[in-house]
């Protein structure tokens, strides 16, 4: 039960009940759909990126398990105002946190952000669920790169 409590922390359950930025902004200029064919989880990420490469708005929509929804919701909060390069760096660090006990933290990632994302690191104890946690991030990364669709398989 301890592992389960670490996975399903209150913060995660709260994000599931009250997801942040679950909407479709009219002025978004990058979009991507992510899909996990094993479980059917689907997420759409909308970004509004300005000429300087700053993410001015980020939102999501989708259906899925608690882990994938909470991860998408948390991600939107963290990416608001970041540059595309920062978003990519954060994704790398997040992936490390989801898979390793001793993750390598990229330079320039601030401690508050790390603390907030760390609530999802319990997923490392559940290897079958890592894709749920990273689906939104993979999709965001595809949107940044100008790809419209990704699949985690």
């Amino acid at each position, binding site marked *: *039960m301890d*592992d*389960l409590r670490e*996975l*399903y922390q209150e913060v995660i*359950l709260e994000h599931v009940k009250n997801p942040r930025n679950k909407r479709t902004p009219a002025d978004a200029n990058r979009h991507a759909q992510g899909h996990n064919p*094993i*479980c*059917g*989880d*689907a997420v759409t990420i909308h970004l509004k990126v300005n000429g300087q490469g700053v993410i001015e708005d980020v939102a999501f929509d989708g*259906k*899925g*398990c*608690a*882990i994938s929804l909470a991860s998408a919701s948390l991600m939107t909060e963290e990416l608001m105002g970041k540059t595309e390069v920062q978003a990519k760096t954060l994704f790398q660090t997040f992936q490390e946190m989801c898979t390793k006990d001793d993750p390598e933290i990229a330079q320039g990632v601030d401690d508050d952000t790390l603390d907030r994302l760390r609530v999802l690191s319990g997923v490392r104890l*559940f290897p*079958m*669920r890592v894709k*749920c946690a990273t689906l939104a991030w993979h999709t965001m990364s595809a949107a940044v790169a100008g790809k419209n669709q990704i699949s985690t398989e």
Partner: protein
Amino acid sequence: MNDATGSAAKIVRGDNSAQAFDVARVRADFPILSQTVYGRPLVYLDSAASAQKPRQVIEAMTQSYETCYANVHRGVHRMSQLATDAFEGGREKVAKFMNAGSADEIVFTRNATEAFNLIASCFGQVHLGTGDEIVISTLEHHANIVPWQLLRERLGVVIRVVPIDDQGNFLLDEYEALLGPRTKLVAVTHVSNALGTVVPVKRVIDLAHARNIPVLIDGCQAAPHMAIDVRALNADFYIFTGHKVYGPTGIGVLYGKRDLLNALPPYQGGGEMIASVTFEKTTFKEAPHRFEAGTPPIVEVIGLGAAIDYVTGLEQDAIAAHEAGLRSYAEERLSGVRGVRLIGTAKEKASIVSFVMDNAHPHDIGTIVDRAGVAVRTGHHCAQPLMERLDVTATARASIGLYNTRADIDTLAEALESVSEIFG
């Protein structure tokens, strides 16, 4: 070969054989059931995905490798003869298991999926063209959808889909209305893998035959739970897979009426399937060998034979009664858990219980019950069109096998209580 492997646990004879089904003795035959996961005893409720194997199957296969193994239908030597006898003996057992008229009507494939693809390819080649219609149902597994879609791309055939009602019942009247002058094949499941619905396949076949339309039945989820009689059904083709009837992986079964099989072209070319080969012209053997190019799954067939001996030794009616009792119990127990909604409540069902919970996604359910040692399947069950019809993205599915007990169901129900606790 089976003399040395020990006989399957027999039911204890009593006034009522169903009640006398000795599940404790059955469980002792399955080595994996003594495993623990996360320190908890394994509660295996995922037999519809793949069933566990009794010692008798494992030993028959090991013994085959250790004492009577060679390639089949080739050597004049003693080992080849023994292996051929054991392999063809497996075919005889399968024929008897399905009540086929002859072992020549049993084609071995890699799995059930390959059997579907074989029919799509070979039947499609000689019997189907642009505008011809194939009737399937909303309940189908992707294995009975995608091969026909590939054929649609290749030949321009049309796929018609029989609807179901909200409970998951196959709608016979709507089915009959779909049968028309262009219908060339009906391909429907006997039992839904996602919901457990039992389709009235006898009626399905009779209605098609009244219009001279042949029928293919997907028996993957039926064969583990009920006696299959292809002649009583008058099925033209009937497919099932070894690993779901407590046999090994790597072995699928395609039954086809002899005349229908012999009217089809070969599936793949190679050794084993030819009568004679010259560089100018090759002639092919009759069924089943025509469809079995290359070295077949020899030991898998022997293992499947042992699985059939095991299941028939326990008596299929007794297994069905045991599983039906557990299914009712599971439906009652699960319905008592806050937030649980059963998906698929057809009038006639096999021992599959699909469900969702109000606040927890099936994936989260699967992870949480796993930590209690309970294995259930979560997801779309390779039946995405069915999920869409029922307006769910996924379900959790507890599927019951002959080795399950009321205690297994209790453990699942208790684990679901903790899901409910976490998600509120």
